[in-house]
């Protein structure tokens, strides 16, 4: 009996490889580095080619106590959330985070308005507490970010962090600092593949190297635009494999941030008695969102709950076996 031939995709392009973190020999103080990207096929199609660098899981921490996070989430994280350094350490030592993603939400004028100096000190404390590479996000307030992030970039000089985010309307300041300090950048675009590419072009036209760029095409959680996010990521991966150099950046997904925004994750048992165990709903929401987006082609999964982190790391291991 004749077997059907395997339908193998043949691709001209590959994703860029981005190295995050620098060890002592590389001019930093990290004990480990992370490499993402480099894929030459659609995700996890082992018969077309191996997964060059498996997706990684970063855990999200804040520079302030996450008062508005749901209780099941903060319970799982414990008292460590009171100190970013402690929190980061716990994520790495106990929960196995590959990287730490520090969100400087406390610098936002509406959330404490922490000074650039304070933010830089927080960055330093986290770097001192853990050996894994660091992702640094601003507070999504353009003007404040333009004051805060340059100071953080400077404070972390040589550590090859990933700093974000640059947008098509606000990128010049951050690009020039990250270029000088050796960091990588996250380019943010609002679920639009064309704008994602435009951000990459604008940043690269300032002389920023393409292999230091990560794309954040925005994430939608299950039930909250997941299919849009999926479709955009899939199209961007296909464009990259088709040889589009301006679309060949690895993708970062803010899984925890979006999943824990969902009503189904946040609502307490009293508010939504029909939705099931309130301690597990958010975890499941994170896992469902993350496992779907892994299939679309994601490289850095930023998550919040230790149990979802463990579950997704397991999924990644199985998919790349």
């Amino acid at each position: 009996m004749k077997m059907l031939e395997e339908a193998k995709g043949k691709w001209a392009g590959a994703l860029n490889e981005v190295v995050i973190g620098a060890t002592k020999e590389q001019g930093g103080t990290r004990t480990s580095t992370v490499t993402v990207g480099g894929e030459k096929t659609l995700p996890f199609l082992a018969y077309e080619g191996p997964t060059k660098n498996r997706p990684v899981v970063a855990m999200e921490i804040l520079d302030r106590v996450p008062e508005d996070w749901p209780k099941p989430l903060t319970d799982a994280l414990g008292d460590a959330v009171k100190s970013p350094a402690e929190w980061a350490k716990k994520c790495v030592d106990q929960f196995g985070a590959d990287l730490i993603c520090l969100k400087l939400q406390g610098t936002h004028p509406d959330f404490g308005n922490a000074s650039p100096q304070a933010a830089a000190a927080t960055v330093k404390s986290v770097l001192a507490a853990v050996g894994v590479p660091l992702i640094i996000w601003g507070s999504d307030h353009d003007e404040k970010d333009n004051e805060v992030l340059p100071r953080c970039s400077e404070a972390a000089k040589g550590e090859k962090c990933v700093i974000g985010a640059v947008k098509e309307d606000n990128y010049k300041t951050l690009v020039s600092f990250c270029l000088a300090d050796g960091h990588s950048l996250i380019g943010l675009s609002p679920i639009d593949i064309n704008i994602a590419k435009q951000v990459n072009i604008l940043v690269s036209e300032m002389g920023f190297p393409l292999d230091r760029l990560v794309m954040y095409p925005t994430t939608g959680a299950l039930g909250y635009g997941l299919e849009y996010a999926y479709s955009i990521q899939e199209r961007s991966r296909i464009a990259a494999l088709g040889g589009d150099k301006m679309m060949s950046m690895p993708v970062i997904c803010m899984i925890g941030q979006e999943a824990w925004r969902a009503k189904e994750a946040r609502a307490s048992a009293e508010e939504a008695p029909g939705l099931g165990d309130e301690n597990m709903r958010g975890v499941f929401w994170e896992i469902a969102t993350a496992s779907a987006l892994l299939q679309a082609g994601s490289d850095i999964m930023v998550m919040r709950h230790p149990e979802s982190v463990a579950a997704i790391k397991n999924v990644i291991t199985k998919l790349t076996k």
Partner: protein
Amino acid sequence: MKTYSVTFLPEEKTVQAAAGKSILEAAIVAGIPVNSVCAGEGVCGKCRVLVKSGKVEAEPNSFLTRRDIQRGMALACHTYIHGDVVVEVPLESRISGVPQLASEDAIRFGRISERVGEGAAFAHAPLSGKAYLELPLPNLTDNIPDQERIYRELSRHREMPTMHIGLAVLQKLPELLRESGWKVTALLGYRGRTTEVMEVEPGDTSARHLGIALDVGTTTVVAHLVDLNTSETLTTKAKYNSQISLGDDVISRIMYSRTGERLKQLRDMVVGDINDLITGLVMDVKAKFHDVTYVVCAGNTTMVHLLLGLNPANIRREPYVPCAATLPVIRAAEIGVKINPRGLLLALPCVSSYVGGDVVADVLVTGMTDSEELSLLIDLGTNGELVIGNADWLVCCSASAGPSFEGGGITCGMRATTGAIEHISLKPDGRIDEYSVVGGGKPVGICGSGLIDAIAELLRVGCIDRRGRFVKTECGNRLREAETGEREFVLFPGKATALGKDIVLTEPDISNLIHSKGSIYMAAECLMAHVDMTFDDVKHIYIAGGFGNYLDIERAVEIGLLPDVERSRFHFVGNGSVQGAKMALLSQEALTYLQVRIAAAMTDFELSSDHKYMNEYSSCLFLPHTNIEKFPSLRGKYGKPAQAEGARARA
């Protein structure tokens, strides 16, 4: 209700207005042309007036700075009269000046004598005819009725289809024939398959035989007076459409026209413009209104509806259904157009709600349907229309480009009239190298072609990035922060301008133009994809529309408005609308061709439901395009090579 007097300066024209009426309403009554892009909705900020004295109440708005308000500046549409007031309408808020007529580039297409007449594509056979008749006197052996006697004589000289005659003419016919000694001139009007004896005049008037070709545009109305015997264009005039004060684009006009009274108001405005133009034309050549016997007009579907008083409401609503596409021949007097009272008026057929008779006329003028070679027509305006095809087929679509090509929605934007910067080039440091102003003199503002130049040049010298945002380090002291918090680039400092006010460009200005150019380019791409072809297959690209004439093709490609193909493939059509109307006026064959081979043969492709348009539009919101491969001649012109620049910011 209490009324107050409102005096407008500098005209010193005073009108009475009821308490609580807006200054804009009073201005319309007074016939003072005030710019109002948004039809008085209070969202465009263009109807600025200076309240010199008197009591008014103004609604707060975001367009005026504190200094403006202290000076007495107000928005005419949202400032209400509560006392006798004196208002000055400054130059910047006026719809004034005379629009430019087609440039020299368009002359090739303007010479319609090459296409109409002996040995040309279309035989000379105007829609209106004059036949001098010396009728045989009736007697007992030849006693057919007067009317039939005229028909018989007419048929003797030419092949006549079915004829008919109006009651008013019949009523005076017996006396007229006998008083004129049976020597009369019959005025014939072409009405499709029938010919009407519009009028019978005593004696021989056949030497004086005039017609009008009209382009009824959303922005401008252009009229040509044509000698129907010789095909010669005797004189031409243009004027802004008075409806502008009730909205800049067709959508705002449709929205305004929602009551019968307002529909009539709009019709009266454009008819008034047409009559002004006709009066001027007729006076120029010392002719009589009586000698003008036929008007052919071309306009977009909405303008034709408004001219004929047809309700345009459904043009705007899905599924976008006009009242009529093929319009009946009417007596011009029925809508108030002043020519010979028995004279006829025909509007060229439209294709769909957003592809009108103006585009059909453009196609006729380009001659693109004569050739097997593929041509693309782009009519640039507030509403852009595109047609692709050849002798065998035609597919068209329309794309709403917004008013920025006409200077609308641009801080210092204006139409291409006296004082508008129409071309500009910059030195490497972003300072003005060369520029030209319509009518010479100091600039007042910037029109579409100048804006395209400015943006292409700012991009070339690095003052803006490909997204259209200012690059602070390159702009130097030309960039400043306005009171509104917006950053603005000073193109011309106040001392160099006619109004003493700086001419600036803001990021939202640039963004508006990018959206306009993006919608045209995207429409062109979708149209090409729809017929499964590429721009390389297109042998000729015709640029039509008043604005098109002054366009610098190179700059238009640099910003991604036009496709990057060999520049020799581009041709300017000029005002194809009025030229096409004129061809139809002069040749029944041309009219039939236009109706059958163009309007009826054109397939309308609706872009609003096209997935490609939705998915890829944002890729066009970049200079020239997100995918630079589509603009091969511009490749490698932007940005710095990776890591060539170090850390400038910290230094």
